[in-house]
């Protein structure tokens, strides 16, 4: 899942080396927290969150086969 998020995000940003993804569990949900370079925030969120929404849709589809729910949070700093 982390690689999938990273693949998608890296293809969209100018600073792929600045992408970090952290995974932790909250109850029955796997939470992924992604941080990107502050100049790249717009590139992973998009107008009215359209890009972030698309990334999440693909993620949910990939999680169909597993038991846990997934969530993706995006931040520009730790």
């Amino acid at each position, binding site marked *: 899942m982390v690689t*999938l998020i990273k693949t998608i995000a890296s*293809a969209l940003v100018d600073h792929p080396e600045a992408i970090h993804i952290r995974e932790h569990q909250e109850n029955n949900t796997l939470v992924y927290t992604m941080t990107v370079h502050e100049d790249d925030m717009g590139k992973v969120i998009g107008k*009215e969150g359209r*890009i972030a*929404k*698309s990334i999440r*849709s*693909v993620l949910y*589809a*990939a999680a169909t086969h597993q038991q846990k729910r997934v969530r993706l949070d995006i931040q520009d700093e730790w």
Partner: protein
Amino acid sequence: MKTVKVTGKTIEEALDTALSQLNTDLSNVEYTVLEQPSKGFLGIIGAKPALLEVSLKEEEEIEEEQQANNSIEKEEQGAMEEEMDKQLPNPTEEAHSFLLQVIEEMKVDVDVTVHETEDELLFHLSGKDIGVMIGKRGRTLDSLQYLVHLVRNRSGDSYKRVIIDAENYRQKRQETLERLAERLANKAVRTGEKVALEPMNARERKIIHTALQYREDVETYSEGTGARRHIVIRPT
């Protein structure tokens, strides 16, 4: 239809081999990636070549005259593109390998065929896990299409429309929307009241507008902004 199977270290390498075997260029073939290449450990152990199935398109698709005219142009274009390739990766190849990588990491069983025209880049998906790839009301398919579009058209020049379809989902969805439009238009006329549809993206709204354009007893317009934008059918 002439088909060859080829291998190569990368998809591009395998494709090149196939093109020289078939003695043709990229615009005359369709191909399916049967096996993704993998670099293996340190590029030595467990390295797996790419396996491609490349087919020559049907003869009718390529008019002979056109071919004669184009081959001269193509050679010139090809030379130019090759020069550009040295600085920039080909955006179509980049979009294609992006899609393949995402599919691989989603761990779904899906095959991809590519069809490229002058202004359009069409990916067709098929396979066992196609339902997952389409998603509810095509949400996954639309999201993937949008992301691949962003990757393909990042550089800003040489814009191409990106379409990702799955087992004719787009065509079927269009027919569903057209039927829905007719039904709701009839309802609007019958009750004499406006009917608001659920929010849809621009492409789907256009299908509805177009479907009802011929009717003189209703008119259609859109209301709301962003993701909430939806069509209203009003009896005239």
